[in-house]
């Protein structure tokens, strides 16, 4: 049996091991402490990248130069992208909630390779620090955008090699984490927990881990090829030397499109845990959701060419990638229908985690449907490289992964820290964030459709209204984020003690005390049925 609430126990937060104080955290191999260290690092970088975004939005509040030079603007959007993509959204949910909750959800005491887990963290930290240092060292901040497209990334006189190396190291960390999670899921599930009895967040982590392991090496090699091209003029990508710039785009997107699924699959896993709990009802379509995670991971591996419709790829290739792009919408839609069906007829408790999860569906759907506009060959030409793409991307990544992250934080916060935040204040923060988000990004869909290019420091007068609305939206959004942060930080020290199971959840993490003890379970539980069993109901089989 698992630990029971009320039993005398020492939580992972208070556990004293070989080391004391800060070292006890920095050298800990406990999956929960490593998860929290990732959380703190990622949250810090998130607010740095948000600040950069805010500066960019302020620059765009009026046409012409407002608060910075064009070169500074180029540097800012590059670093904003590198931090957000490589440090926050790609590892984000997987390393924070994956580390913290994967072992608990499958009834294990830790991940399969705890020391490797700590190594992954330090590689991540090294890569993250290098990415930021690339701004200040060498010949100026890299100005290529996060996608490092050749030939510009080979020709730019800025500090590109340093940023490429940072991304390369972050990739290493990602691969090691992926291997760790795959082995953990295969080898360390509790007795009786077959794959079809495993909760759906571990399913999503499993699908994600395979992408991490199979796709990340390709970007690693590609980034090294750019470094070699810059240093030795080998001719991989330079046509003058017999190379092909489109080869870089192929190699880059072979990783970077599946990377979008590395970002979004764990997010889908998080909200899939939340819907049944706050509907007090088994998840609808368990098997369909589980299999659709793998299907998204598999099909998502073969759609990279839709980033290159205007790059001069062959017509046959464009047709192929367009078709597959539409196909990948099918398993995504299966998930959405199942989430809605899970809530249907349930006993809905509209607490902050569910608000963020419902917000996730709404924003993710806008992101997904605008993605189909770009997946169609004809309309893609119209919106390519415009603010429409920026808005679509942020609806998917921020509206999707970001809102799911906020949902997860509000869902699992009482478990992670043993404290309960102010629910009323969290609800108000959600309203502010949701409003700010849409005011921020929706105008960009419109001005993008009208022809506003992305990554431009300046704009024509007809785009001013949209740009101003967008900037005001960004200020509202950041206000909401600060409200959320203050609520959580204040609770961390002075909040009320949270019960072991404040949401009446039924998965394993809610069967142990809050915060969990060092090795999670005194005795590994035996699993006898599928997860999400809230008592007899018509959906339970």
């Amino acid at each position, binding site marked *: 049996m698992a630990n029971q609430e009320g039993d005398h126990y020492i939580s992972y937060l208070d556990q004293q091991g070989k080391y004391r104080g800060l070292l006890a955290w920095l050298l800990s191999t406990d999956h929960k402490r490593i998860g929290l260290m990732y959380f703190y690092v990622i949250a810090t970088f998130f607010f740095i990248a948000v600040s950069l975004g805010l500066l960019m939005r302020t620059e765009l509040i009026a046409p012409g130069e407002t608060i910075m030079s064009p070169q500074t603007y180029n540097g800012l959007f590059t670093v904003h992208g590198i931090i957000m993509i490589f440090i926050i959204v790609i590892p984000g949910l997987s390393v924070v909630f994956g580390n913290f909750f994967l072992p608990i959800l499958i009834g294990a005491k830790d991940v399969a390779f705890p020391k490797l887990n700590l190594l992954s963290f330090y590689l991540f930290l090294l890569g993250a620090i290098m990415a930021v240092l690339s701004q200040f060292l060498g010949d100026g901040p890299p100005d290529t955008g996060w996608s490092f497209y050749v030939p510009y990334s080979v020709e730019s006189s800025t500090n590109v090699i340093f940023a490429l190396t940072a991304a390369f190291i972050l990739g290493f960390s990602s691969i090691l984490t992926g291997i760790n999670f795959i082995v953990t899921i295969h080898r360390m599930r509790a007795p009786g927990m077959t794959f079809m009895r495993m909760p759906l967040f571990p399913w999503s982590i499993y699908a994600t881990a395979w992408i991490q392991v*199979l796709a990340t090496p*390709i970007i690693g090699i590609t980034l090294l090829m750019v470094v070699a091209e810059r240093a030795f003029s080998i001719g991989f990508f330079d046509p003058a030397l017999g190379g092909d710039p*489109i*080869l870089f785009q*192929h190699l880059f997107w*072979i990783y970077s499109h599946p990377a979008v699924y590395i970002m979004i699959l764990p997010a889908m896993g998080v909200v899939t845990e939340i819907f049944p709990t706050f509907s007090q009802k088994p998840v609808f379509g368990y098997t369909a959701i589980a299999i659709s995670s793998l299907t998204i991971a598999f099909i998502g*591996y*073969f759609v990279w*060419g839709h980033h290159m419709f205007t790059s*001069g*790829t*062959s*017509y*046959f*290739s464009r047709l*192929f990638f367009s078709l597959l792009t539409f196909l990948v919408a099918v398993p995504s839609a299966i998930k959405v229908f199942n989430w809605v069906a899970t809530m249907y007829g349930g006993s809905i408790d509209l607490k902050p985690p569910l608000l963020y999860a419902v917000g996730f569906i709404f924003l993710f759907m806008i992101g997904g449907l605008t993605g189909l506009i770009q997946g169609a060959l004809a309309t893609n030409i119209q919106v390519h490289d415009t603010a429409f793409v920026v808005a679509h991307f942020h609806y998917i990544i921020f509206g999707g992964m970001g809102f799911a992250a906020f949902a997860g934080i509000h869902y699992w916060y009482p478990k992670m820290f043993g404290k309960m935040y102010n629910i009323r204040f969290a609800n108000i923060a959600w309203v502010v964030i949701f409003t700010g988000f849409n005011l921020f990004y929706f105008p960009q869909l419109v001005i993008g459709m009208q022809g506003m290019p992305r990554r431009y420091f300046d704009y024509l007068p007809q785009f001013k209204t949209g740009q101003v609305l967008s900037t005001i939206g960004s200020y509202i959004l950041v206000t909401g984020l600060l409200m959320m942060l203050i609520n959580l930080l204040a609770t961390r020290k002075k909040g009320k003690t949270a019960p072991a199971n404040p949401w009446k959840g039924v998965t394993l993490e809610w069967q142990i005390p809050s915060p969990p003890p060092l090795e999670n379970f005194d005795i590994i539980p035996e699993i006898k049925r599928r997860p999400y069993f809230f008592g007899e109901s018509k959906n339970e089989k």
Partner: protein
Amino acid sequence: MKNQETHSTGYLTYAIVLIGLLALTTLSVAVTGIHLGAFTVALALLIASIKVAFVLAVFMHLRSENLFLKLAVAGVFVLFALVIIITFFDYLFR
């Protein structure tokens, strides 16, 4: 130890495979002299794949592993092959 017994491979086998790998390397260099057009890359990848298969099966002991592991590794290579084929189809039809 049973596991070690199943992995035991004679030095002679290793030597033969090594010679085979060197021969295939020589072959891959030699075929670059033949003008095969679009198939030059395909042939080079085919020879490389055969070499990889030998290394995996003999040096990395995959041939003595269970079926699941063999299928998992094969699946990864099929995936990788598909990615390369799709990429080169773009070049072929451009």
